[in-house]
């Protein structure tokens, strides 16, 4: 009997944002309907494999899950309950775009969802416009109110720093504004310009004016300072939560708990293997009932890979890695395996150690790609 998480991907959005390189695109109502049916077939296809597993976290991500018609979402949940043993206290998160919160999906949320992650991104309308968001500051405020009114007691706001044209002062007011909305959880991501996005095109044309490095670092420092000062604890690089409101589903990713990814392109870690689903929509429509046909890049993880993952995922969390826990799961001590690296990184000031627990310093978080790369084994 083991516990798993479920991730359901909804690859649709009203409009592609300028920074977005996720698997998402606008779609007709017809396509959404076919997708829901295909997703239901996939869910039911897992019914047998799911026997003997409990589910304690479900995450509906995208894209924009909240643009799916409520009727179809209900059917999807029916399939989930039929096929998986979803525990009564399970955390069920849905990502919502503030521009798509309406009566019909609020009813659905009320019935099935107990955590909402709202893609607010900014409290500044000019910045929202620059990002290509479909909503305003006012829409966010209204959505928060509506969600609270409909009984959501666990709310996350996604925020973005380092937006083109953004100043540290503007970021401070976005933070202030977000804190005043009193969500239980805040994710603050630093904007990254990815290949294939509108921002990358602008950048290549020399037309993307990102805040300079010093400003960006000032913003990052402000984030920690203001959120921690308002009772949000930084429990991961970009994630802050009030006591008891960590996102259990995301924690599962960082602690390498099992999860099944359902839907187009979704990733899974299950019984020692990683894979992702096909990213071809037509192929998915046709074959979703048979997991074997849609699985791509299935990799049975060896011990070495598991250990590397445990390090570079585990060190993303503020609590870091506790040696006894690590040894119990992976059969050897981090200090025996990485002794030299740990010692050097502590001397460089990027890693801290308390008893037998290691975790990144604030400086270590800033340059974490460099720090974490050291834990890949030769």
């Amino acid at each position, binding site marked *: 009997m083991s516990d798993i998480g479920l991730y359901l991907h909804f690859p649709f959005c009203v409009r592609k944002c300028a920074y977005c390189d996720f698997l998402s695109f606008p779609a007709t109502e017809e396509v959404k309907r076919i997708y829901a049916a295909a997703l239901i077939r996939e869910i039911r296809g897992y019914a047998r494999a799911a026997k003997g597993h409990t589910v304690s976290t479900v995450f509906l991500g995208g894209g924009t899950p909240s643009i799916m018609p409520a009727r179809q979402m209900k059917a999807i949940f029916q399939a989930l309950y039929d096929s998986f043993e979803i525990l009564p206290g399970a955390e069920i998160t849905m990502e919502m775009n503030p521009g798509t919160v309406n009566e019909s999906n609020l009813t659905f949320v009320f019935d099935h969802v107990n955590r909402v992650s709202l893609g607010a991104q900014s409290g500044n309308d000019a910045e929202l416009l620059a990002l290509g968001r479909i909503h305003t500051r006012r829409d966010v405020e209204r959505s928060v109110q509506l969600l609270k009114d409909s009984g959501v007691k666990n709310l996350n706001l996604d925020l973005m720093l380092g937006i083109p044209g953004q100043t540290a002062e503007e970021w401070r007011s976005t933070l202030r504004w977000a804190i005043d909305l009193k969500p239980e959880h805040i994710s603050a991501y630093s904007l990254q310009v990815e290949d294939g996005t509108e921002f990358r095109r602008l950048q290549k044309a020399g037309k993307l004016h990102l805040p300079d*490095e010093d400003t960006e670092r000032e913003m990052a420092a402000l984030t920690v300072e203001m959120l921690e000062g308002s009772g949000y604890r930084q429990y991961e690089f970009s994630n802050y939560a009030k006591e008891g409101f960590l996102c259990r589903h995301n924690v599962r*990713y960082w602690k390498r708990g099992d999860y099944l990814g359902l839907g187009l392109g979704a990733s899974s870690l299950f019984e020692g293997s990683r894979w992702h689903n096909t990213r071809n929509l037509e192929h998915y429509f046709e074959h979703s009932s048979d997991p074997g046909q849609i699985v791509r890049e299935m990799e049975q993880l060896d011990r070495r890979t598991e250990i590397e993952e445990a390090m570079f995922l585990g060190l993303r969390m503020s609590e870091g890695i506790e040696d006894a826990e690590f040894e119990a799961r992976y059969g050897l001590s981090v200090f025996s395996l990485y002794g030299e690296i740990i010692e050097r990184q502590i001397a460089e000031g990027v890693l801290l150690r308390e008893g037998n627990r290691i975790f990144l310093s604030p400086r270590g978080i800033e340059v974490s790609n460099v720090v974490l790369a050291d834990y890949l084994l030769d």
Partner: protein
Amino acid sequence: MDQSKIRNFCIIAHIDHGKSTLADRIIEQTGLLTEREMQDQVLDNMELERERGITIKAQTVRTVYRADDGEEYVFNLIDTPGHVDFNYEVSRSLAACDGAVLVVDSTQGVEAQTLGNVYLALDHDLEILPVINKVDLPSAQPDEVAQEIEDVIGLEAMDCPRISAKTGLNVHEVLESIVHKLPAPTGDPDKPLKALIFDSLYDSYRGVIVFMRVFDGSVRRGSRIRMMATGAVFEVTEVGTFGAGKFIPADELTAGMVGYLEASIKDMKMTRVGDTVTDADTPCAEALPGYKEPQPMVYCGIYPAETPRYPDLRDALEKLQLNDAALQYEPETSQALGFGFRCGFLGLLHLDVITQRLEREYDLDLITTAPSVIYKIYKTDGTVLDITNPTNMPDPSEIEHMEEPMVKAEIMVTTEYIGSIMTLCQERRGVYEETEYIETTRAVLRYKMPLNEIIYDFFDALKSRSRGYASFDYEFFGYERSELTRLDILVNHEPVDALSFIVYAPNAYKRGSQMCERLKKEIPRQLFDIPIQAAIGSKIIARETVRQLRKDVLAKCYGGDISRKRKLLEKQKEGKKKMREIGNVEVPKEAFLNVLKLDEE
């Protein structure tokens, strides 16, 4: 064999004008090879050459052509490299020929190297057959180019073959012209053996394989031969001719023929390229005019990026040297880089080609240090030192004076670029000697220049300032007294011996700050600030700082997809592997060479 049925020739061309493609077509249409055997470019069989579009190691192919007159002709197509560093190789290949096919691109016209190659061929009294290539391209201007060949080079070109080597169009006409317009050899088969070694190859089973052109006499299995320069005597075990990439044994080689010879020769040094092979018992009266022995002009340190691979590097250099007599090396040690070799090269391109061959053919990861020339140091105690490695320079107090090697540089250029080339030469301490006009639009500039001013990037600068129209050759002529000093580079306060170099003293400040700026660009930001300083003795003359890395973090979690996170970290780690740790600073291995390339932009 009847000499009138032999044609020994080479193909000369500016880079990319289609030399190798035409060679392929000739080989194809003479039919010794089936199409299946044809590699795309038979002559350029080294991977590296193909990528660079230049040919390094001279090779040769024998094909049989049945001409329209019904007779069979033997074509010996002798390949030539095409760059100034390899002029001695070109020269020895040309010496084996009687004629040359000159390929000119009908979309580009006559270019710098076209001329350079033509003059080299004329030096060797070769008959030249012009061919206008790429006439299938829409931008082809064959009439204009033919006119240009007549005007600029002075060759009859109006009736010359107009071809597309790519499609094979009119290649037949080239073959007929080779038969009718290029001369047959005219040696005397009854005289004592006189043959020119134009290349050689070492094979671990067969020993040295000598490539040669027989001018007079003949040679067969069992002949006793003598190398006239070295005096070595051998008994011939096999002679033969060249198929495409294959050795085909023959009974004998006679006057006019091109082929190979084996004689259980174990030592490459016994068979110098350019030497004359003659009969040991009845030698010919005098040797063929040899050409200058290749002398290394440029030295640099070559180190394995991973120290344990030192023995592999040594083995690889040993093997390369067997095929490339111009390469020299001896072991040296660097504090920064560990065990390696100080290697001597003909020039910077030669250096580049060798390092790339080491990396590709021997799978080595290398670090190369600043190239240096040979400086002469006259010490106060009266002794004279030859310095090829700046770190061996004695304390300034022990130096009475120093001398540096000078070259005579000849730069051929179209008149519109004379001004900018003269400026370049002045910047590089060139002393102007004369300008000679060849045509109204072309001239040769002659300068006396310090060699150390041309070994870094002079050729690149020349090309960029003349849009590729300048060609350049140089000849060593002696040492001159000069004011020189050693410039040291300190990274994070530690002197890096591999980056030290000797510089003309009045330029030291400028070079020092250029080096620091360049190094700043080469060293990636790290966890702490890294000062980069240039110093003469204990005096710091320039400084830059590589600012510490501010931010390098992947913020977002992608729905449990960790593959991109892993890829990013792997890339990071891979990058780190390519670095050399100096003190606690990671320096990319390319930095050691790139730091010397002055920006031309």
